[in-house]
């Protein structure tokens, strides 16, 4: 939910409908609620309600259809437009608190995410403090309700980061997935391995030997910061070069937002592909090797090894062998 024009539909279309940031300009307003279902990891049905933010609609949600809208919510994503006019803010917050109350009333167990959106409109220098200020405001407005705040923009990977976290909370057994992944990384002595969901390219499990940032990175506090530590405001296309060419002599220290960038790249392929679907991608650079393979029928795995001796072939072999296990794991979940 969120005020009209705060970018709900845009981000949804970017994540789930493989839109590109620039095509979202074309989108029209959302009339009432747009319900969409997204199969996630074969047996997980994401039921996404994109609620039009116009006042009339909001009034409806809050006063009339409360038990329709707010019952049985597991996860509320409230989107704020950082660029919103001052005098709109108050109403915005009013609606926000109303929503929180409604949620508290109808589905108390729902977890609540707040996205401070359109961060790109804020100068990269001021970005962090703006974000923090806003975040504080929000915490004030949302009384005792526990919320997690992200700064996002459809123009860079921050969106993927936030959504990865969001989805992460939904994946029932993310933890043991991660554990398995750890073993796998161990096994093929790679630096790290990541599992993406295929259609959305959202990161669902992640494991790394490199200690450059740790599990508790998933904790949202510094997440906000991480999201903007170096979120260069560059049009999407260039990210690829970032990853591809400009890194050859980069130090083993990997940019923290690499996964999200990769997500975007793969997305582009999926978009641009005309008559075949992406299978795998092997990339060797002087200092590290990256192998992206489809793991199960709805996930990719990305394995990165810095050790030049490890041949991509080996990695791919390992992946092939590991597949059954992960498939079994997924199947196991659904059983």
């Amino acid at each position, binding site marked *: 939910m969120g005020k009209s024009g705060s970018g709900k539909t845009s981000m949804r279309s970017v994540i789930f409908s493989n839109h590109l940031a620039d095509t979202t300009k074309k989108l029209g307003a959302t009339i009432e609620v747009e319900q969409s279902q997204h199969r996630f990891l074969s047996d997980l049905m994401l039921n996404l309600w994109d609620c039009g933010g116009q006042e*009339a609609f909001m009034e409806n949600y809050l006063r*009339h259809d409360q038990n329709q809208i707010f019952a049985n919510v597991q996860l509320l994503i409230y989107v704020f437009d950082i660029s919103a006019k001052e005098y709109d803010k108050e109403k915005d917050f009013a609606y926000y608190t109303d929503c929180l109350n409604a949620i508290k009333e109808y589905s108390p167990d729902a977890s609540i995410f707040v996205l401070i959106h359109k961060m790109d409109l804020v100068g990269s220098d001021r970005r962090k403090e703006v974000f923090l200020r806003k975040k504080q405001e929000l915490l004030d407005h949302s009384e005792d309700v526990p919320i997690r705040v992200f700064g996002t923009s459809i123009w860079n990977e921050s969106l993927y980061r936030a959504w990865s976290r969001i989805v992460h909370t939904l994946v029932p057994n993310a933890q043991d997935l991660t554990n398995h992944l750890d073993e796998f990384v161990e096994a093929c002595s790679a630096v790290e391995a990541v599992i993406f969901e295929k259609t959305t390219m959202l990161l669902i499990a992640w494991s790394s030997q490199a200690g450059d940032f740790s599990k508790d990175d998933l904790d949202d506090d510094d997440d906000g910061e991480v999201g903007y530590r170096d979120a260069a405001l560059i049009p999407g296309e260039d990210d690829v070069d970032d990853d591809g060419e400009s890194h050859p002599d980069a130090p083993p220290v990997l940019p923290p937002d690499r996964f999200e960038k990769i997500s975007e790249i793969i997305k582009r392929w999926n978009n641009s592909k005309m008559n075949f679907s992406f299978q795998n991608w092997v990339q060797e650079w002087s200092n590290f090797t990256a192998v992206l393979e489809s793991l199960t029928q709805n996930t990719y795995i990305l394995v990165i090894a810095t050790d030049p001796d490890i041949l991509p072939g080996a990695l791919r072999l390992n992946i092939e062998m590991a597949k059954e296990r992960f498939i079994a794991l997924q199947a196991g979940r659904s059983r």
Partner: protein
Amino acid sequence: MQQSEPDESFLPRIHAVFYAVFDPSKGPKVAYQVPEGLVSSRYAVPSTPSVSPTTSTVFASHPNPALAHSAPRAPAQVSPLFDFNDVSEYVIPKTQLCNRLVICTTPRHKIAGFPVLLESTKYPRNEFRFNACFVFARNADLGCYEPIVRKVGRVLCECEQDSSFLSSPATAPRIYPLLEQLYEDLNSYSESSIPLTPHTTLDLKIFPFYPNPGLVRDWDVPVALVDIRSKLDGSSDVTMLRVVQWIDGVRCVGRIAEEADVDLDWVRGCVEHLLYYQHIMLLDLFAPSNIYMLTPTFKYLAMDPIVSSECPLYVTAPSKPPLPWHTLLRFYIRLKPGKTVAEWADECAIGDDVVLDARRFVTFGVIKGFLRRVERYPVYVPSPPEGETDGEQTPAGARSRTPTASGRERSNTRHSTLSRRTGATAQKSNLTRQLLARPYSQSRPRSDSVPAALKPRSVSPGSTGSTPPIPFPNPGEVPAELLQMLDGTHGGDELCWTFGVAWEDMEAWLARVGGVGAVPKEGEEGRVRADLGSVRIVFR
């Protein structure tokens, strides 16, 4: 039986007209409505109406703010018809419903609209949604309004595209007077012409809706229910002008085609057209040999003041004093199955001492619906009928399987047997022709138009559509095609028309087919005959 003149007052009344738009920040809202306050909104919309800069691009900050959000400011006495929020999902619907005619219903009202969605980058959020809706009573029949609603939607849409008539603050306020005029004009004059932009005018006229006309058969007689000529003017269709001259309640369609010298199809077309507008009504061909009987509605109409007052004037010549209804009633009651109009006329001494136009008399009953024609359906029944198989033996049976084969050769054999009696009966039938009025034989269709009469369109299904044109048979000969049609589904009129003879001749033929004398038995002259040997006539 609703052959009454189309009455404008039958058109449903417009209870309200309103114009709703999608406000990028406020969502769906009623921008203007006439009369005001009839469409309420569940939530008192924040009273500063659309003056916020964000929206001003699309929504004129109205010179007269009272126009905007009239719901909350509605005068106290008018109670709203319905709540906009209940129906907003149909007034400003999801994209898939846009640019379609959408009629939704509230507990007491119907709301007809044509939601339009314009997509263009010139709008905030790339789109402009609006809908001009008409509100009617729930049980209103909107048949005739649907085109109107569509057109209003379309025209406004085009204006918006050309000159952003709706979205630009300059012209937007003109929507209110527009609605006002729609409301007033359509309700009072059921037509309207409103200039919108220098280039476009919104011209509307409500045409009352009628069901499609029924089947027109060549032997149907159109009777005018209104003065058609008065409704025609120079601009009318030429053929129509021609045909109308001949609609006199006596001539049947086929004959009109002849005498007006117009192609039969075109005449049919014209007649259907007139039927559609309920200017005429189709009757059966009137002939002295016809039979009529009362219908159940008689019990209501017999004492109906309108009927009893109209009838005398209708059936008696203007010069003569009209007969009292009571007398006419007796006459009507005397019309019974098994009694031709001729017999009936003698019985009631019509023509001799009673001054009465028998045709108009009968016609009146039929038009009013308390009298109906009893049609003859000849059926060929081979005698003696033996149980199981006689079905197959009837031409009917044969026909239904193999259209012509068996029927033909049977008819041939029959000819040989029949031709003996020909001489006598020929004279006789000639005689009868002298004696009796012969509507058919005069109006014998040109041979080329006979097959037209035989086509499935005019004859009930499965008839001999394939038969070649029938040369006019000399009355002595029984045309082979006749036998194909003796299955009880072809009425006397149809047969007579198809073969272009009067019923008397037809009866003579049938008698011969049936193998009995065409001469009625003693005391049966001119009386109705049902038993013609192996041809039985079923009246119904």
